[in-house]
């Protein structure tokens, strides 16, 4: 602790803090412009000048460390005049186009100029506009408005770990420009920190200025990280942009491309407006009342006849909607509820429950870990903000990363070791790591007292503790050493692991052996916004194909879900043709609507009231930003009434009932989260079979659940489509052997068919593995395999 005097006030602060931080902690105001809380000090604007006794020139308080005994003056006529002069210099080449600038009304330059009583610009200089393209089409760079504060490229590096932009040129030519276009991930971090209107989003055709707009906080509807964001809404109907300004956890104002730019589907022209029935291949628009009566009658009739009813509910629906679906299901005979959450989150949650690991965790714990293991997940695709937290741990706390993934991933470039097992070989890797921890006696001693320890010890001793076949022994040793030496370890795993039960068990056994979750953190990547909510609310959740294939299920109701997105389309079509009644409730046209007897519109996330449970168990509020009814919720509610059950006055009444059922609890800070009874930690038993690799290639689907409502049957999000596309990627070694180069068309064959698509050669992929990124071609790609799997065996030939 050090003591210093600021403006005559005695203040105490920690050593290492800057003068600015010391002043802010004590409520003393120093004007700043280039400084941003989330970034390291930049020191380019010089507005934060202060006088420090003993130094003849003023210093920039944002970069100067506070020293014991400093006497600091923050306000004086002299300082004020200097600040005015620096502002005059900043304004020299800044145009006065505030009336046309998105930032007008919330611009830091406007505010600070006003504060410093600048009424006219004293200097004038040439203004050059090179009109160069920004690395992402979603952001427009206004060169003349840019004041070269440097926040944007610092954010690109420090927050997003990319190096897409930089300052180029000298003097009046200086500007921000793309230095590595391909490195840009369109996260918009630069956009969010720019203090002026030099970076604006290009997505919304309609703009709205701050005083015209309403700002509604809500939770991101895409992945399950649960980012908090704010929708900027015009006239209660058009979303004109997404902003982040509240600094709320877990994302603290950062977002990924989907959170920041994946909102335009809400205002898509293709939205389903009115209910319709498919009669003799013709769409016939019907009234809400008719659609409701028809659905209720059909369900009742089939249920009375003793036939089963299936419900498939989206893991992106709110808790309230999922709850209503399960109430409806409970009122019918032989009903089952399925959800796409069962594939990854469901499996992880079941294994956690079985082994007594709590599914609640705190993302901030990542900062306390010395080694971070990322297995079978690309955090660029889902939970991008976890990658930011991992990078922060690396940058600020010297953590090291071990990646375990046959494919390249966004963290591989800063990983200390990247092990590349074949799909299905993860179990062997984790068992070998566990085996070695046991052999060297470097496991957590608490593990010895846990149930199943003896059994696991015995089975691991029977296995090899050396690097599994095909994995570089030196790299394996390095990874082992990093893990064994670390006091706290964080294990993050994705659907690459949950796709294989043995791998999941081996990973969790390894985690417990290393003393997690007490000494660190073990967390599954959360794929869909409310996957954990769906898993918690639906009892005995089925996988979608179980309902489709089950002949006893005569009717199916799809709630905001399209199985064509993740299952073999041909198979889905045939099974649906055999059903007596199919109903779909969704916001945009999907493939499953062709097989439906009745289609009713639903509401997009911005039109809903409710909540999501994000991956770490915390409850995120979904707030209504756009006027109009919550069509889906209202339909479910009315359907409940038709089935003779209690209806609810509002979504809030449903939330209250969920609360009463004991599913939620308050954490230490009063925030709501999932209530979980702590189980007893135990090891799981499971063998480790060696994967057979009969097919020439293992094709891994990277992000099946990524683009719902962004690109379903058509492309409904211009934002997403301008920066994403379908891709098939192959390793350079395989490409050379097959004589392929990027752009060549190949034919993929699996057990159910074949498809042709262009291939891209990419470094960092293991030999024998193909990476398939799905954006809008789900149907073509998924139709070649008969089963739902993260990984399928394929053969490949040049077309």
């Amino acid at each position, binding site marked *: 602790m050090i003591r210093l005097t600021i403006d005559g006030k005695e203040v105490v602060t920690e050593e290492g803090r800057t003068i600015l931080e010391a002043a802010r902690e004590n409520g003393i105001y120093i004007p700043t412009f280039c400084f941003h809380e989330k970034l390291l000090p930049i020191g380019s604007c010089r507005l934060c000048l202060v006088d420090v006794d003993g130094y003849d020139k003023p210093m920039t308080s944002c970069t100067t460390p506070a020293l014991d005994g400093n006497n600091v003056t923050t306000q004086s006529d002299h300082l004020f005049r200097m600040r005015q002069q620096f502002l005059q210099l900043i304004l020299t080449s800044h145009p006065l186009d505030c*009336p*046309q600038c998105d930032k*007008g009304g919330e611009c830091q330059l406007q505010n600070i100029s006003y504060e410093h009583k600048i009424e006219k610009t004293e200097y004038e200089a040439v203004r050059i506009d090179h009109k160069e393209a920004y690395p992402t089409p979603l952001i427009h760079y206004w060169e003349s408005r840019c004041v070269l504060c440097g926040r944007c490229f610092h954010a690109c590096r420090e927050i997003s770990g990319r190096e897409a932009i930089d300052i180029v040129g000298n003097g009046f030519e200086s500007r921000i420009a793309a230095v590595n276009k391909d490195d840009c991930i369109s996260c918009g971090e630069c956009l969010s920190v720019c203090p002026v209107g030099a970076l604006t989003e290009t997505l919304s055709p*309609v*703009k*709205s*200025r701050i005083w*015209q707009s309403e700002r509604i906080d809500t939770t991101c509807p895409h992945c399950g990280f649960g980012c908090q964001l704010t929708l900027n809404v015009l006239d209660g109907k*058009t979303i004109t942009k997404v902003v982040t300004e509240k600094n709320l956890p877990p994302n603290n104002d950062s977002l990924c491309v989907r959170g920041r730019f994946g909102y335009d589907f809400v205002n898509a022209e293709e939205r389903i407006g009115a209910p319709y029935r498919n009669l003799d291949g013709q769409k016939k628009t019907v009234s809400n009342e008719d659609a409701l009566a028809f659905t209720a009658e059909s369900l009742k009739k089939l249920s009375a006849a003793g036939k089963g009813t299936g419900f498939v509910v989206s893991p992106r629906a709110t808790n309230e909607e999922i709850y209503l679906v399960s109430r409806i299901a409970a009122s019918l005979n032989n009903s089952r509820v399925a959800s796409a959450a069962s594939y990854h989150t469901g499996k992880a949650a079941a294994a956690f429950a079985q082994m007594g690991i709590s599914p609640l965790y705190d993302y901030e714990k990542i900062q306390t870990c010395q080694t971070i293991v990322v297995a079978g997940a690309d955090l660029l695709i889902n939970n991008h903000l976890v990658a930011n937290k991992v990078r922060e741990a690396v940058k600020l706390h010297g953590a090291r990363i071990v990646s375990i993934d046959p494919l390249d991933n966004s963290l591989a470039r800063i990983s200390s070791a990247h092990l590349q097992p074949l799909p299905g070989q993860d179990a062997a890797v984790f068992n070998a790591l566990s085996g070695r921890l046991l052999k060297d006696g470097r496991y957590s001693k608490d593990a010895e007292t846990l149930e199943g320890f003896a059994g696991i010890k015995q089975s691991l001793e029977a296995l090899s503790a050396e690097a599994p076949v095909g994995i570089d022994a030196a790299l394996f040793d390095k990874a082992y050493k990093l893990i064994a030496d670390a006091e706290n370890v964080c294990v993050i795993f994705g659907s690459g692991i949950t796709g294989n039960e043995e791998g999941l068990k081996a990973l969790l056994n390894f985690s417990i052996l290393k003393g997690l979750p007490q000494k660190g953190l073990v967390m599954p990547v959360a794929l869909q916004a409310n996957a954990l909510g769906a898993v918690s609310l639906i009892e005995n959740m089925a996988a979608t194909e179980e309902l489709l294939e089950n002949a006893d299920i005569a009717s199916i109701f799809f709630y905001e879900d399209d199985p064509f997105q993740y299952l073999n389309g041909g198979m889905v079509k045939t099974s649906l043709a055999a059903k007596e009644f199919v109903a779909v409730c969704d916001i945009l046209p999907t493939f499953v609507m062709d097989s439906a007897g009745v289609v009713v519109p639903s509401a997009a996330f911005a039109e809903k009231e409710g909540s999501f449970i994000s991956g770490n168990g915390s409850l995120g509020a979904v707030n209504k930003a756009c006027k109009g009814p919550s069509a889906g919720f209202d339909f479910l509610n009315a359907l409940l009434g038709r089935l003779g059950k209690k209806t609810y006055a509002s979504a809030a009444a449903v939330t209250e009932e969920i609360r009463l059922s004991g599913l939620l609890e308050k954490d230490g800070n009063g925030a709501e989260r999932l209530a979980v009874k702590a189980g007893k930690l135990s090891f799981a038993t499971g063998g480790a079979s060696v994967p057979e690799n009969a097919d020439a290639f293992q094709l891994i689907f990277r992000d099946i659940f990524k683009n719902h409502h962004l690109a379903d049957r058509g492309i409904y999000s211009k934002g997403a489509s301008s920066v994403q596309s379908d891709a098939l990627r192959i390793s350079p070694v395989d490409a050379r052997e097959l004589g392929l180069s990027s752009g060549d068309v190949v034919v993929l064959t699996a057990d159910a068919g074949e498809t042709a698509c262009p291939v891209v050669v990419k470094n960092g992929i293991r030999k024998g593995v193909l990476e398939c990124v799905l954006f809008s071609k789900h149907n073509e790609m998924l139709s070649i395999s008969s089963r739902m799997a993260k990984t399928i065996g394929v053969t490949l030939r040049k077309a």
Partner: protein
Amino acid sequence: MIIPLLKGLKLTLKVFFSKPATIRYPEEKRAISPRWRGMHYFEKNDQGETACVACGLCVAVCPSHCITLEIKEREDGTRYPGKYEIDSLRCVFCGFCQEACPVNAIKLGGDYEFVHYTRDDFKLTKESLLSAKRIG
């Protein structure tokens, strides 16, 4: 008794032969002050489109919240009003919008005749503002 009658007749005759205080509206129109604040109109730019750059300052300043603006952006980044609407029934003709406009696009003209059959007709749109009469 006859005196008051004669006085009245005198006044009648005086007024009868003097210039009338009323005018024969609508055939005749009264001259208005150059600062008269009547119906709004849009100034045009060189291309003959509205000079409005869709900054929204009029929306911000309007005390009766009667201006609706939808901002659109052209390829080159310049802006124009996609939709611009003044609900003249709520307008108090204070002229603040004209004062706030940084490009002198919205003005209050001399036209004070606004009679319509339906309330909707009192909505001034982008098109009607462009074709509106400038001076009364």
